[in-house]
């Protein structure tokens, strides 16, 4: 094979320049094991080498931010002595080859990021993106991914309370599976992934280590190398890279870790994710400015004959690394025994040593036996935080102007009845498979604008507050204008929170993009980050964490830019459910917010579902108008929050205008309630299907009182019509029976999946 001639560092995914850099750091030639460690840690997945310089432009500060980006999860102070941790990650590539296990291990991984901070995971969300369901493979992927999230999340005992479901050809061979987790803790339990205290022990908790996921971070995937320092020739059959999730192990791991933290037995703790032990040991040591000695022979193995590089880089699931004092070892091992969690001392913290210039450097040493032969010795921070960063070439796509000029405003109107029916999809088949109710916190579960949970859980101080979560994305907008598209996506998330009365407090994001070596993709990424920064600045939102997933390509084509935005909000008093979608006959139907989009087009259709379904993927995206959005969001949030606080209100139903436009929002409310609505006047067909955030459909039992409050807040409203009857009548464009709308929406997904109802 020609690969045999390839130098080892390249087989490990390192460039010639990167090898030079390693030589400079070490002041000598790296051995094979050391090269393998750099190979995984300097991979795109672990080092963010293409994106990091851009991510710095995101705002991360806020008075309530306890932990920003850089740790396993972001943490905010939610009040009442409770801190909320939140994180989002992708598990795209594993899910493409084994959808059940890929999705399941994605859930497992994101939970560990949250409980490693000391928080009990209380909610999961799952934004999912697949190709067209007409293709049998897509149906297999959807069923497998959903079953995997269900199988892992339900069993581990964390409610899955929401997510997203998008179908587009660009994801056909590269589905996106993102998972978000939020958890809560008493503020004083917050811990960081930091090693400290020379002589302290590094304890590996959880599963034994197998050959799972070696090359999961994609560097060893095509390696064939040999050496006498533990690196032997890789043989495909010996290298199963598919990880299998064990939710039962994870459940015990959660309980054991939270008990260890409650008992004050832990100095620092870190989950094992991508790049396994090498990542956890080098990151904790680097954050603490200390060194760490790791004994490869101490690690419990699932398979015989594993080599040091395999042990150090394995991505076996359900493992944690705790740093503890030697005195607490008896208590730690007793608690772990109760939960039947394996606990093994695999190393210890050592003092940093002076380098040639006298600077203290914490070294990661891999040894055979705790005092045995040193197999690798490298500065921990060089692995963890000092990968070379790239400012890769960026280029605005050449076809963008042509694409934007092809605006769908000239698309023939056709039958709005048919268009509307075709746009409706009830994702209930997905979320019915998720236990969304565990812990008795779920006031609004999946299927509405945002999930709303009581801020309560085992071990938390009493609170009347609630937290709200939403995940949003709009690859259709972002393909046309990644900057405005991403800004609008943030606005969409804030609007979703407003519908359940929550004020937005923090953002996390998962940036799913194509190949960063394509300048167009880097341009999209950079623009998206600027758009997110712009929106977050304008709305006063800190970004507390995120994840970047690159190299998402299908059949040689990059996916549309897909930044997924996760929003966390807080409701100060949650004693009654928010109004929801169910309206009542006789209520007045009001559009709240600016009726027209801010830009030159009153009702832009570029990037709308309506246009996309017609095969029109070009056009203009509405601009992001911060002033208008802020006022509308504050007003709606306040109106709903009063209902949540138990104050009597004339507001009876609330829904934001999102995907599917005004027609989509009204159809969803009608289908949910079984009661129709009649609107007499619309400013044209485009008003029905245009999608731009900042508009809400509200019903009120007292139009006059509601109008006065809106006027007082300086927010525009229009009385569109009144609720009642059994038909959805939208001027002279749509006239459908509510039961037909409900039936089509309810059956859309199962029909597309070719399942029997």
């Amino acid at each position, binding site marked *: 094979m020609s690969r045999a001639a390839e130098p080892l560092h390249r087989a490990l995914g390192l460039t010639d320049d990167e090898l030079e850099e390693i030589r400079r750091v070490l002041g000598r030639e790296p051995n094979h094991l050391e090269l393998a460690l750099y190979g995984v840690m300097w991979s795109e997945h672990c080092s963010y080498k293409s994106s990091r310089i851009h991510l710095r432009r995101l705002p991360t500060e806020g008075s309530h931010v306890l932990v920003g980006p850089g740790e396993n999860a972001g943490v905010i102070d939610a009040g009442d002595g409770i801190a909320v941790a939140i994180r989002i990650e992708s598990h795209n590539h594993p899910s493409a080859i084994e959808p059940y296990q890929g999705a399941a291990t994605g859930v497992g991984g994101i939970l560990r990021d949250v409980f490693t901070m000391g928080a009990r995971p209380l909610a999961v969300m799952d934004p999912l993106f697949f190709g067209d369901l007409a293709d049998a493979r897509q149906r297999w992927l959807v069923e497998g991914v959903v079953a995997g999230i*269900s199988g892992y999340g339900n069993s581990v*005992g964390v409610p899955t309370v929401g997510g997203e479901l998008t179908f587009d050809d660009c994801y056909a061979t590269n589905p996106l599976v993102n998972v978000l987790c939020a958890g809560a803790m008493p503020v004083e339990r917050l811990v960081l992934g930091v090693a400290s205290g020379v002589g302290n022990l590094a304890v590996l908790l959880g599963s034994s280590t197998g050959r799972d996921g070696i090359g999961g971070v994609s560097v060893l995937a095509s390696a064939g190398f040999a050496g006498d320092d533990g690196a032997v020739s890789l043989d495909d059959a010996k290298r199963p890279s598919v990880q299998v999730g*064990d939710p039962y192990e994870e459940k015990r791991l959660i309980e054991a870790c939270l008990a260890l933290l409650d008992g004050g037995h832990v100095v620092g703790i870190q989950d094992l994710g991508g790049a396994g032990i090498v990542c956890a040991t080098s990151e904790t040591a680097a954050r603490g400015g200390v060194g760490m000695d790791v004994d490869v022979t101490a690690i419990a193995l699932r398979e015989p004959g594993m080599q040091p590089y395999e042990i150090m880089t394995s991505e076996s699931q359900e493992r944690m690394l705790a740093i503890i004092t030697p005195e607490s070892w008896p208590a730690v091992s007793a608690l772990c025994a109760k939960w039947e969690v394996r606990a093994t001392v695999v190393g210890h913290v050592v003092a940093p040593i002076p380098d040639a210039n006298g600077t203290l450097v914490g070294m990661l040493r891999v040894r055979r036996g705790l005092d045995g032969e040193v197999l690798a010795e490298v500065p921990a921070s060089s692995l963890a935080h000092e990968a070379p960063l790239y400012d890769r070439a960026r280029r605005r796509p050449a076809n963008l102007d042509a694409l934007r000029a092809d605006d769908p405003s000239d698309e023939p109107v056709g039958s709005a009845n048919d268009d509307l029916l075709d746009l409706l999809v009830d994702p209930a088949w997905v979320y*019915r498979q998720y236990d*969304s109710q565990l812990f*008795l916190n779920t*006031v609004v579960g999946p299927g509405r604008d945002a999930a709303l949970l009581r801020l309560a859980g085992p071990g938390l101080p009493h609170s009347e507050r609630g937290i709200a979560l939403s995940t949003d994305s709009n690859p259709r907008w972002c393909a046309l204008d990644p900057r405005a598209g991403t800004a609008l996506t943030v606005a969409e998330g804030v609007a979703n929170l407003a519908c359940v009365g929550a004020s937005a407090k923090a953002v996390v994001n998962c940036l799913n993009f194509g190949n960063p070596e394509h300048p167009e993709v880097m341009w999209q990424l950079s623009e998206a980050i600027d758009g997110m920064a712009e929106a977050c600045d304008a709305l006063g939102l800190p970004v507390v964490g995120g994840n970047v997933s690159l190299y998402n390509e299908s059949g040689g084509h990059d996916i549309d830019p897909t930044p997924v935005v996760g929003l966390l909000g807080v409701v100060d008093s949650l004693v009654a459910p928010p109004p929801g979608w169910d309206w009542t006959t006789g209520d007045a139907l009001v559009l709240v917010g600016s009726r027209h989009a801010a830009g030159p087009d009153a009702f832009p259709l570029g990037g709308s579902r309506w246009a996309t379904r017609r095969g029109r993927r070009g056009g203009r995206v509405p601009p992001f108008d911060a002033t208008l959005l802020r006022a509308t969001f504050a007003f709606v949030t306040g109106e709903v929050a009063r209902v949540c606080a138990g104050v009597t209100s004339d507001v009876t139903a609330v829904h934001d205008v999102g995907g599917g436009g005004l027609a989509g929002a009204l159809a969803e409310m009608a289908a949910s309630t079984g009661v129709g609505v009649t609107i007499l006047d619309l400013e044209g067909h485009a008003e029905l299907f245009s999608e731009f955030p900042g508009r809400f459909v509200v019903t009120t039992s007292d139009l006059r009182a509601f109008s006065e409050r809106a006027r007082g807040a300086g927010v525009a409203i229009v009385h569109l019509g009144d609720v009642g009857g059994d038909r959805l009548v939208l001027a002279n464009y749509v006239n459908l029976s509510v039961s037909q709308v409900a039936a089509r929406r309810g059956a859309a997904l199962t029909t597309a999946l070719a399942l029997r109802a």
Partner: protein
Amino acid sequence: MVRIGVVVFPGSNCEYDAASGAAQLGAQAEFVWHSATDLSGFDGIILPGGFAHGDYLRPGALARFSPVMEAVARFAHDGGPVLGICNGFQVLCESGLLPGALQKNRGLTFLCQATTLVVTSTDSVLTSAATLGQELVIPINHFSGAYTCDDATLRALRENDRVVLRYKENPNGSRDDIAGVANGAGNVVGLMPHPERAMSTLLGSADGRVLLESFVTSNVTSNVAVA
């Protein structure tokens, strides 16, 4: 105060919810680790929902061998009220404390949804405070919730009034629409739906209260009656 023991297996995940349900009705709920062998002092025992031992092999198959199950069997034999919710019901069936078995749902997916239950017997520690024919909206959350038993068992259940709850619209393929059954004495009851998740309108329904209320007061009432 009524003392309710909530058994915790490794892998249980509704123990807090069950304890909070009992506590809301004035009982004192205490967790009992699965290695416990002594249940004296408890007025009732709840086996909560979740995935005991990961539900590996079959739901309840490994949990049935946990040391606490011998104590639960003795407690039940002595007339103590025992309630198995969801996974707890599966454990009771596997242990032989209740007849039948729970198979995968007809649709082969996990189901989390509201169901309407009909009270079909009030002769049990779970349903004594309810009225016959009463309809209760209570959620289900399970993958293996299709109740199955052979013809003879079904006949016996019916003849002895041991089917305590039925689904109004069968969500999972349970035989005879069975959602919950009791043992001959009525002191051991299992059901797949989660009454502890239906304790407040803030969370969607308060219809579970009448069931848990029956349960937490059942021993007290019978003790009074005996005294």
